[in-house]
């Protein structure tokens, strides 16, 4: 029982972090129908920035992640404005390939700049853990989880309560109508992508704090974002949170009770079942179902 509780707590903490990794991916997909295969690379770049801030200036990673966010926001904005906007109306292969090319360039660039070694951001407190009865809760993961959930809620508030957020939503729903209302779609798309990469950067810095990372891990973060975003329902930010928590739990329990590395197949099994049975996701609404016909 204690092992089960421990796995559950661990799964929930990991799930919050996965949600933050995926929420930007889901936002970009939902708003502009672009699957960003470079998303994982942005996560890793964020981790390196957090790591660099810690190495060079001794900046705590939970502050350094704001530097990651700022840098990646700028990078994301420019990427969308100068590259992805050029092909955003094309067939899906085109955007997939463009972002894959971007992923190759970023991952190989990071390999050259930082080497392929595994890194982690060492802090004095991340390794400690609180004891809750028989369950141990690592402090670093708890902090990361709390921040990840808080940021997800902030994003929801941004999108639903501010003019900028509403212009993002409007552009996602009907770009033509949004442009007629005077919304500059190019700018809004770039803003959306920038927000997504900024969140990826923050998630990356936290991942660097609670575990290890290397450029080669980019692909697995992209895949995880896929699974979480599809599970939660596209463009739905609460959905990303729900999807992240479900995947976190499934993986923690699977790791506990399944032999070998079968747990790795589990996430994909869940993905395929959800796609076939309920393609709108756990919290998806009928509106997003329309995307199925695109």
């Amino acid at each position: 029982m204690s092992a089960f509780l421990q796995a559950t707590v661990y799964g929930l903490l990991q799930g919050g972090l996965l949600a933050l990794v995926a929420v930007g991916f889901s936002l970009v997909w939902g708003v502009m129908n672009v699957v960003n295969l470079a998303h994982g690379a942005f996560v890793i770049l964020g981790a390196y920035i957090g790591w660099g801030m810690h190495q060079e200036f001794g900046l705590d990673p939970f502050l350094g992640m704001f530097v990651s966010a700022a840098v990646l926001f700028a990078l994301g904005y420019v990427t969308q404005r100068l590259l992805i906007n050029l092909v955003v109306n094309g067939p899906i292969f085109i955007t997939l390939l463009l972002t894959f090319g971007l992923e190759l360039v970023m991952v190989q660039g990071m390999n050259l700049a930082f080497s392929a070694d595994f890194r982690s951001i060492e802090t004095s407190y991340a390794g400690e853990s609180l004891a809750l009865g028989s369950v141990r809760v690592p402090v670093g993961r708890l902090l990361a989880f709390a921040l990840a959930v808080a940021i997800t809620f902030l994003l929801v508030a941004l999108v639903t309560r501010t003019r900028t957020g509403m212009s993002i939503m409007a552009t996602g729903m009907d770009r033509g109508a949004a442009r007629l209302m005077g919304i500059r779609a190019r700018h809004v798309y770039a803003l959306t992508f920038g927000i997504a990469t900024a969140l990826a950067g923050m998630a990356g810095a936290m991942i660097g704090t609670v575990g290890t990372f290397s450029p080669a891990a980019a692909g697995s973060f992209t895949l995880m974002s896929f699974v979480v975003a599809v599970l939660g329902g596209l463009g739905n930010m609460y959905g990303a949170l729900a999807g992240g928590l479900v995947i976190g739990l499934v993986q923690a329990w699977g790791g506990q009770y399944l032999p070998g590395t079968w747990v790795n197949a589990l996430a994909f099994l869940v993905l395929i079942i959800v796609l076939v049975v309920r393609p709108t996701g756990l919290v998806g609404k009928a509106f997003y179902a329309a995307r199925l016909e695109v």
Partner: protein
Amino acid sequence: MTTSTQVPQQGVTGAMHRDQAMRLLPWMVGVLAVLGALALQSQLFLGQQRTVAAIFMFVSLAQAWNLIGGFTGYACFGQVVFFGIGGYFTAIAISHWHLSFWVSLLLSGVVAALFATLIGLPLLRLKGHYFAIATLGVAEGMREVVTNLPDLTGGGAGITIPTVGPDATTAYLGNEGFYVLFLALAALSVLVGGLVARSKFGYALRAIHQDEDAAAAVGINTTRMKVLAFALSGFITGLVGATYAFQQVTIFPQRLFDVNITVLMVIMVVIGGSGTVLGPLLGAVTLQFLSEFLRQNFTDLHIFILGAIIIVAVILLPQGAVNYVREARRTGEFSLLANVRKYRL
């Protein structure tokens, strides 16, 4: 194919002769290309033969992907699953069941096609990104399944096909043998692509690509056509995977289910021109040649440069080289900037 035996009933004009000659031209060029490739073999070192064999391999993979991704318009991002299944089936059939390579090769294609049918029935109902991701999930999941069946597949440590000694059922083909075999597969896949492109089946697939509801409305059994295209594409990919496995001798799940192989197929088709026969051929030859050139000359930067080339190619030639030339010749608009304008926001 049938045109060569058709006898025009009356009024045989020069124009018709020319028309027939034009239709035969691609087949003659194809036969000449295969003969040329065979003649080229004697001029190459063994290492070069391996490199050229890799080009042939990607020609057949790109042609296979083109059937489902190009003609039918279903962006399969898990095509490598058939490659992996073909490779592992052959490895298992030779080492556990002591079948000869040639029998295993054929069975691998059949098994891959059956698997394509099995997953195609539920997954081909999905569209766009959803289909892409579901197939990606199948490929990634299958890699994990193969990794976790160590008794059958050797797990993460890989499986070795016996090529010498009493356990070897078929002698190793060597670089010369694989050159010919991969060339045969490439020729077969181009032939299949050419036949599909000119058949009623091919028109049905293109109709599905353009408007699936309209295709169904004119009486095309869309589900059957899509599944058939997927199975055919899986069959060829399975054959290639089986040959690759035998060439490599020892295979690992990480390599046989490598998502980058899928992405390479997609890039080759898209850059060459999807939905054409010439496009995937050109794309595969160009990209594989370029990649090999970069690997040998810029070891560290080769992936970096390849990524940059993909980005630029996708922006400047989103419809692919072959389609671009066709459109440009028809409309007289050769500017690449007009191309960019097409999909820009």
